[in-house]
């Protein structure tokens, strides 16, 4: 049995019926997963990685078909099976852990019943025994109170708990292959870290093989033994993880790895990027699929498809020029031209924005609920002080629920802070948007997370931009001036001029975000708040957007507040960081100060939770117990004490910690003195975020 792979696919082709014809989506893909192996499948959106992963389970969308190739499970053919035979295999030998656990669970049944269903179906257990087994499974995925959780409905659980439930489901039989389809993408970093640890343990415990699908190169590096890189439905490279990451030979792999942002802060370093867009399924190039975007493509690459060549045993690559790359005579990276800074470095004493003592409560208590002593209100911001220096970038980090988005919305005026003062360029401005002068509105602009939702689908890009100009410009512009300014803006975000007449639906995600950035910059704002502007985007597109933001900062006048849960992306842009937890700032300082010790225990956890995209570094992660507490029920004393790995005692539970000065300007809100924290943290095995 040792030599029979758990799953093998040979020359698999999958088509979709689109419009009125079959379009090839997965082209000649072969994939072999050995027993006990965790095989990574990396690719950007549209690369077909989910289609391929589900096809390996022989699950296809209604409009898809496997047009050629073969799939074997433990050596026996899978494609020839009937539906009925497949239903015996699904859930017993092949299990799926889905991407979005809330959507993947039936909202109308208790999670215990949904897990029990599998043992009822496959092991023939009666209801009661199956329920008991479900509770056992919940215990195995380290849920503290499995009996109670089993009786809950999916919407009553947090994202991390929901994902644990789907894992319990997938493992309640002893599956031969576990397919994990972006299982942590929808989760916070801290939750992701604990789920990843759980996966690793359970997969080994269960003696299963796994296919791990992700676009996150860090997660893949930490989880997988081997990895296959998919681009536009074709395998570009495949091999053991250390070799693929350590000495990549395919230009696409190299570019992807290089486009992961590094914490370089205010410096003018740019990320290497991949130009252009992935081809649409319908018109893929006849030569190498990657050739149109490849920095080292030659005539041969455009003319002829490269074969999948064996580099050495177990490592493949599909590139005409891999030998040149392997010997080091060719470096396939595009580094964009740096834009010359026309403005000075951050000015220390001049602030664009000053916010003092900002408070925000949601769900104000009415007189009626006061009377009934109900607590339903949520303290989203508690006495937050925020300052942004001119020409600098403030990075705002924290888990979801930490209040970082609320802070941003209170600053631009989308929400009205309940208390506190705001000054813009030393002039006080009202907390209420309607009471702010036109100039203040012009000066504060925002770029939102999801570009699909922020552009009106019925307005062309030109209309969206000119409308902003018309409404917010300091001076009245003539129609011609507006049109020329719109062209300037498109040029600035590097969109072709003919995009003026395009609708958002005709743009890719990255292009839409560029249009949204152009809109924010239309009226020469003083401060642009970018709320997770790249987290809905692919790695390669993220690099382009991050570079663009950096270029605009260098070329213009604007300062940024950059919000993200991704500490890498924040570190790439920001020079000053604020870490938020449950509506409070717990640490602030320069990039270097926050990234190195001493740092607040929460920051320490956040940094250690980021999966490092280097398989050589085995991370000593600090995992948090449980989820972020509800903001409606903030813990007394230090808010972090319920999860803090460095809690020192009753003082943490009873007294709110003071601000302590670590070094110039670097402040930590913790009971442990900064030098003690530094000692503790240097003693710990936790790896600091590596810097290249």
């Amino acid at each position: 049995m040792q030599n029979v792979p758990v799953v093998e696919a040979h020359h698999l082709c999958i088509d979709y019926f689109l419009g009125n014809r079959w379009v090839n989506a997965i082209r000649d893909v072969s994939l072999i997963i050995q027993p006990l192996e965790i095989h990574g499948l990396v690719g950007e959106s549209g690369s077909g990685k989910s289609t391929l992963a589900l096809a390996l389970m022989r699950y296809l969308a209604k409009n898809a078909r496997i047009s050629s190739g073969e799939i074997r499970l433990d050596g026996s053919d899978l494609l020839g099976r009937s539906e009925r035979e497949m239903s015996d295999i699904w859930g017993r030998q092949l299990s799926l852990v889905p991407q979005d656990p809330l959507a993947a669970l039936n909202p109308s049944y208790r999670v215990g019943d949904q897990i029990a269903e599998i043992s009822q179906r496959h092991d023939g257990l009666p209801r009661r025994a199956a329920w008991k087994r479900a509770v056992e499974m919940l215990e195995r995925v380290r849920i503290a109170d499995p009996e109670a959780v089993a009786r809950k409905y999916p919407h009553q659980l947090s994202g991390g708990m929901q994902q644990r439930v789907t894992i319990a489901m997938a493992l309640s039989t002893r599956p031969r292959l576990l397919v994990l389809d972006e299982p942590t993408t929808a989760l916070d970093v801290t939750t992701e870290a604990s789920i990843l640890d759980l996966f690793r343990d359970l997969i080994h415990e269960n003696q299963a093989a796994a296919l791990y699908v992700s676009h996150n190169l860090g997660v893949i590096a930490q989880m997988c033994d081997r990895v296959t890189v998919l681009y536009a439905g074709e395998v570009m490279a495949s091999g053991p993880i250390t070799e693929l990451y350590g000495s990549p030979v395919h230009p696409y792999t190299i570019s992807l790895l290089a486009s992961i942002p590094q914490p370089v802060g205010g410096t003018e370093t740019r990320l290497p990027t991949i130009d252009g867009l992935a081809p649409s399924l319908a018109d893929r190039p006849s030569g190498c699929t990657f050739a149109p975007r490849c920095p080292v493509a030659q005539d041969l690459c455009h003319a002829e498809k490269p074969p999948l060549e064996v580099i050495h045993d177990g490592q493949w690559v599909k590139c005409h020029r891999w030998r040149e790359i392997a010997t080091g005579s060719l470096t396939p990276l595009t580094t964009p031209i740096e834009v010359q800074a026309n403005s000075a470095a951050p000015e220390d004493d001049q602030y664009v924005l000053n916010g003092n003592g900002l408070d925000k409560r949601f769900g104000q208590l009415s007189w009626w609920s006061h009377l009934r002593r109900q607590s339903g209100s949520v303290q989203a911001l508690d006495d937050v002080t925020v300052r942004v220096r001119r020409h600098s970038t403030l990075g705002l980090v924290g888990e979801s629920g930490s209040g970082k988005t609320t802070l941003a919305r209170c600053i631009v005026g989308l929400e009205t802070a309940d208390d506190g003062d705001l000054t813009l360029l030393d002039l006080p401005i009202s907390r209420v948007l309607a009471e702010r002068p036109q100039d203040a509105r012009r000066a504060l602009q925002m770029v939102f997370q999801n570009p699909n939702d922020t552009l009106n689908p019925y307005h062309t890009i030109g209309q969206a931009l000119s409308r902003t100009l018309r409404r917010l410009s300091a001076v009245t512009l003539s129609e011609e001036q507006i049109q020329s300014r719109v062209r300037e803006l498109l040029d600035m975000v590097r969109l072709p001029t003919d995009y003026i007449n395009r609708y958002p639906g005709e743009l890719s995600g990255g292009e839409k975000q560029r249009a949204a950035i152009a809109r924010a910059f239309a009226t020469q704002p003083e401060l642009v708040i970018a709320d997770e502007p790249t987290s809905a985007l692919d790695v390669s597109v993220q690099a382009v957007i991050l570079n663009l933001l950096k270029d605009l900062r260098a070329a213009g006048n604007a300062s940024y507040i950059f919000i993200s849960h991704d500490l890498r992306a924040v570190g790439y842009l920001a020079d000053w960081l604020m870490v938020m937890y449950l509506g409070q700032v717990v640490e602030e300082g320069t990039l270097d100060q926050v990234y190195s010790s001493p740092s607040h225990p929460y920051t320490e956890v956040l940094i250690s939770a980021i999966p490092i995209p280097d398989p050589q570094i085995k991370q000593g992660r600090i995992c948090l117990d449980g989820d972020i507490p509800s903001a409606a029920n903030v813990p007394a004393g230090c808010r972090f004490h319920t999860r803090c790995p460095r809690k020192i005692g009753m003082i943490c539970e009873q007294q709110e910690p003071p601000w302590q000065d670590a070094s110039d300007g670097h402040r930590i809100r913790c009971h442990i003195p900064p030098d003690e924290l530094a000692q503790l943290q240097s003693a710990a095995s936790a790896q600091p975020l590596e810097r290249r």
Partner: protein
Amino acid sequence: MARYLLRRSALLIVTLFITSLIIFALTQLVPGDVARLILGRDASPEALQALREEFGLNKPAPEQYTNWLMGFVSGDWGRSFTGGNQQVRPLVIERVGNSLRLAAMTLAISVPLSVALGVIAALKENTWLDSLISVFSLSVVGLPEFVTGLVLINGVALGVRSLGLPATAAVPDNTLASWVNQLILPSLTATFVLLGYISRLTRAGVLDELKKPYVRTAALKGLKPRTVIVKHVLRNALLPTITVIALSFGWLVGGLVVIESVYNYPGLGALIVDAAKKKNLFVLQASVMVTVFFLAFANLIADILYAVFNPRIRLE
């Protein structure tokens, strides 16, 4: 949940109160003297005056309203102006009973039929069967009840005599045969009205749910396709349908005016029309109040059922 029910019940009472005001105002606004309408053009002034005094019609409007309201609340719904001045309450209650019978029969036919058609159409999306169901349900919705009613009477009751179905519907006694015999044609007529709505809604609901990832999860658990559909998909897909069914119950009790007229069935709808025509004030007031009660009640039931079947609502 208890608090929610209490609040909704209070709202129901407010609704009824406002309705009663509107009905009363309307009867005051409609031209024509009730006493003369009842006694005829040749009645003597004395007789008219006596009748007005007997029913309290000579008092100022606010007083008339308060008197009626106090009476209604305490169970004295007044007397009819016509037909031997019988008590209104037993009359209305009898008619409500008749209407409930017809409503029950209609639901028994229309719910399984239209839900089944909707589910089949969804599972066979974009096939000839789907199209056939769509065309059928939409075309019967398009036809007014008096057309479908007359077609059924002439085509079935009179056309196929061997079936022995009556052309007019009487109140059935307590045997199944009598229920089917008397009520099948009017129920079918009402079913045709509901069929389109319920089946289209069911179809849309099922199609919506089929796209959701939990269906894939269920299939990949290895569950049989039938279990996936019945246990997982329908459980969620029928939520909006349940609401519409509950709402249509209110309409079935008080709103079948046309169908009751076509089949000459003594239901509540027919009573309202009759009372309105004759300005039979107390009968009109009472029967409209009861109708509104059933509509509001059905609304409440719809919301409760939705919450009961939907844990996301029930457990906030």
